């Protein structure tokens, strides 16, 4: 197995793409690999991993897109993933994509790549925008000063990418790339040399790391590195020396060690930029277009109305445009189920097996695919918002509000989308970079009342509160929102205490998004939803089918089926909430499939059509217990599709289980509270 892999690796050249967010890295990845892409997760974390292939000069090159980062510390998962990949997987070449319109900050990452001893080829990207700004960059000199190849590219127009690949191929031969050293100044260098001596005397370390890079990281006090080193023995002396060095340097130079090192790196970059960049005009022109847009979009008075308009448009686009497609998909699967059923019957298939195929499998696939239109449209919209640069402004505008609720400016969008459908909403939480913010957002998103809950509200509110139907339904939406905010604060306080969240965020210049990257982004999200969340959703649907058909011979979803038993068994739990009947319990259990199924199940159980159902319900519920039931439907366990999506997005069964468990407890508590309080004040 290992031998086979070795051969595989030998003939395949691995190129990793590294770069800042907004550097145009994804666009270059797309134009390099075209449609030959695979999207997955990095092992053990929720960071997306993208891989692709390209053939050049008769060689197959595997291209790995590393997460976009500003640095290679280990404070975020993204950075740790990128750094570990370069350190331990040792790609043949690292192509560093640099946004030349923002040269200095982009080169900060470059200095770290070089220190790590990676075999770097630089793509000086967005060179068209640079030219438009009347700025020239001397590529030959740049390349000479850094001692590595550099190519000018325009990712959006696929310019320079061929040359980039050729340079990368040539560079694969460089086994020992020239390591450019940043001079950290006499005092720091003395300490670094001493630390490096200690490192060099430890064979375990020299085998795994570039000694100078490690010395810098240790001195800098990179927590990830120090933690990573804990598994090696004999490092006490190194750590003691580090502590002494830091004390000496901070006393001597009057600044903390992190500032000292960052300062020198930027000093090196500043010197480099001075040598290679020539401006033909004053710098004031640089941001003019973006400036003008920003003056309106983040304007004190117009900012919020524009933001609300953008959000409304996105919401309408996602759900209104998606509606007819969803209708078609549902119709198609109904029709297909009917046709397949008839055909299987005529072929003499046993009824049970036939039901498995029609209700279980075809129904299951249908229940996965029905989300596709919304997901595609939402990510089409999100992709445009992100690529145009507006997403960062949206977060900028909303952060004040969201921060007081313990969240991040970017949490707003998932929560808003949650009113449409929780599945794309949970997926939209990806735009949050900080893991803690993302988890909290994912956990509270299912409390947002999605459109699938609406049929339940309409049925019950229609039956009991026909005069105040709108008000009652609105109160449920509001309840979900308020509880989401409260739970968010609670989680922040107790589950994620100590974790810091910050809002040091780039506001990238506005750019026109390309149709190609928007479509690729949309396709990636949609297809990965089908593959990852789809399997779980499908499994749950089939499982529920099995449970509602066993033991053999029982009527589908009747009280005698296993599911019926479960319903009868749990029914007493809901007694304090006012709806302790097995019918209600079974409906809730089925509601896990999809919340609107609650209505259908009640229809089946009461053996009644739409009109009859209202009458049947009016018999079994009181207005108070009906309201409690609606509260329960709103809050308890998210539907199977959301559970599948949470699993995919958190990459953890633990968090998925937690999300299901806490919503169940919360739903029950609130339902009981409503019912008991209502009785207390004489509403029951």
């Amino acid at each position, binding site marked *: 197995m290992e031998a086979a892999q070795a051969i595989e690796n030998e003939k395949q050249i691995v190129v990793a793409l590294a770069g800042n967010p907004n550097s145009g890295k994804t666009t270059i990845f797309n134009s390099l690999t075209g449609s030959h892409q695979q999207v997955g997760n990095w092992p053990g974390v929720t960071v997306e991993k993208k891989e692709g292939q390209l053939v050049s000069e008769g060689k197959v090159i595997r291209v790995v897109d590393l997460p976009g980062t*500003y*640095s290679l*510390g280990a*404070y975020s998962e993204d950075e740790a993933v990128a750094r570990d990949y370069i350190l331990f997987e040792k790609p043949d070449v690292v192509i560093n994509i640099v946004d030349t*319109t*923002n*040269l*200095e*900050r982009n080169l*900060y990452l470059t200095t770290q790549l070089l220190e790590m001893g990676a075999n770097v080829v630089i793509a000086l990207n967005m060179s068209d925008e640079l030219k438009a700004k009347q700025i020239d960059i001397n590529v030959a000199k740049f390349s000479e000063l850094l001692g590595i190849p550099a190519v000018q590219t325009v990712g959006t127009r696929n310019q320079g990418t061929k040359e980039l690949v050729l340079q990368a191929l040539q560079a694969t031969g460089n086994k020992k790339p020239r390591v450019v050293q940043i001079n950290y100044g006499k005092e720091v260098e003395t300490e670094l040399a001493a630390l490096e001596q200690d490192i060099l005397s430890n064979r375990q370390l020299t085998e795994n790391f570039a000694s100078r890079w490690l010395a810098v990281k240790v001195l800098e006090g990179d927590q990830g590195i120090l933690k990573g080193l804990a598994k090696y023995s004999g490092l006490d002396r190194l750590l003691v020396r580090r502590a002494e060095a830091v004390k000496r340097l*901070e*006393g001597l130079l*009057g*600044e*903390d060690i*992190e*500032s000292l090192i*960052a*300062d020198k790196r*930027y000093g090196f970059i500043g010197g480099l930029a001075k040598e290679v960049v020539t401006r033909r005009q004053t*710098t004031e022109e*640089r*941001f003019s277009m*973006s400036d003008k847009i*920003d003056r309106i979009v*983040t*304007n*004190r*008075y117009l*900012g*919020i109305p524009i933001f609300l308009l953008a959000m409304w448009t996105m919401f309408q686009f996602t759900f209104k445009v998606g509606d007819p497609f969803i209708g078609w998909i549902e119709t198609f699967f109904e029709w297909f189920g009917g046709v397949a059923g008839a055909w299987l019957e005529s072929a003499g298939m046993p009824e049970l097996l036939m039901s498995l195929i029609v209700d279980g499998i075809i129904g299951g696939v249908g229940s996965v695919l029905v989300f596709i239109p919304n997901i595609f449209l939402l990510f089409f919209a999100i992709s445009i918002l992100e690529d145009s640069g507006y997403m*960062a402004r949206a977060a*900028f*505008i909303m*952060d*004040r*509000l969201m*921060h007081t609720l313990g969240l991040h400016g970017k949490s707003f969008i998932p929560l808003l989308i949650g009113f449409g459908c929780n599945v794309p909403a949970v997926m939209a939480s990806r735009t949050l970079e900080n893991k803690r913010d993302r988890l909290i957002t994912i956990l509270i998103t299912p409390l947002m009342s999605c459109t699938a809950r609406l049929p339940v509200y309409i049925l019950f509110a229609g039956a009991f509160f026909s005069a105040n139907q709108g008000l009652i339904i609105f109160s449920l939406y509001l309840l979900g929102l308020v509880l989401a905010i409260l739970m968010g604060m609670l989680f922040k306080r107790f589950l994620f205490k100590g974790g*810091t969240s*910050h*809002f*040091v*965020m*780039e*506001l*990238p*210049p506005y750019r026109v998004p390309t149709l190609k990257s928007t479509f690729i982004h949309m396709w990636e999200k949609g297809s990965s939803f089908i593959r990852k969340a789809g399997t779980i959703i499908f499994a749950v649907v089939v499982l529920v089918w099995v449970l509602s058909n066993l033991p053999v011979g029982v009527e589908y979803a009747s009280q005698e089926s296993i599911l019926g038993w479960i319903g009868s068994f749990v029914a007493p739990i809901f007694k304090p909430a006012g709806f302790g009947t097995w019918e209600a319990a079974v409906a809730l259990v089925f509601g896990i499939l999809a919340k609107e199924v609650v209505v259908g199940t009640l229809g089946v159980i009461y053996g009644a059509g739409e009109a009859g159902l209202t009458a049947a319900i009016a018999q079994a519920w009181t207005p108070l217990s009906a309201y409690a039931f609606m509260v329960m439907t709103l809050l308890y366990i998210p539907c199977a599709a959301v559970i599948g999506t949470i699993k995919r997005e958190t990459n953890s069964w633990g968090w998925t289980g937690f999300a299901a468990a806490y919503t169940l407890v919360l739903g029950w508590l609130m339902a009981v509270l409503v019912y008991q309080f209502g009785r207390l004040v004489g509403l029951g």
Partner: protein
Amino acid sequence: MTGTFAISSSMQDYLEAILNLSEKDGLARITDIANMLSIAKASVSQTISNLKDLGLVVQERYGPVELTCAGRELAVKVRHRHRTLRKFLVEVLGVNPRIAEKDACLMEHVVSQQTLEKLVEFMEITGKTEGGAGAGISSRPGAVENLIWDEGREAKVLRSVNTRALSELQTGEKGKVLRTTAKGPVHRRILEMGVTPGTEICVKGVAPLGDPIEILVRGYRLSLRKEEAATIFVEVV
């Protein structure tokens, strides 16, 4: 290192103003401080809360600002230094009092620690020290000296002209970064994004709800919350 906090020159001006106000009126309200320093009330509240964090003042919500023991000592010291310098300029060098007042303001932030100490010493020896307020200091020089001068890190900030926290800057104002005092991941992120000592920063705007702010640094736009901006000290240019 105990007191790892920054006392910027603007903070020193605040302390002095609070001291003067409380001696004059018996108490110092935010409004009075704002009037005295001709600074917006919002900025004053921000700095007062920084001073509160440093344990130099106490303030009940919406109540007057009071100096703590440490705050009073420091304020007295600042005022003493200021007055001694002015006296030196007027009485020893014969500088016009109005010019002396202005120069004293600048000098107390620019002149090196040693020169300033020697100057004060000189004035004390020649009996020209500023009486009254200074008396309390000369009797026990230790505590305050330590607080202000013994920390190399603080000295660097203290010496600079017109130091302010980035959060205090108005839209359109520019500054040069002196140091950043955040801790942990935020600190590193701020540095990585290019906000390192010596970098020029320009405040470009404030979000519609008043927070975060938008700055121009190294040719690109960066946004950060005011609480983060409050950890970045700049020299206004």
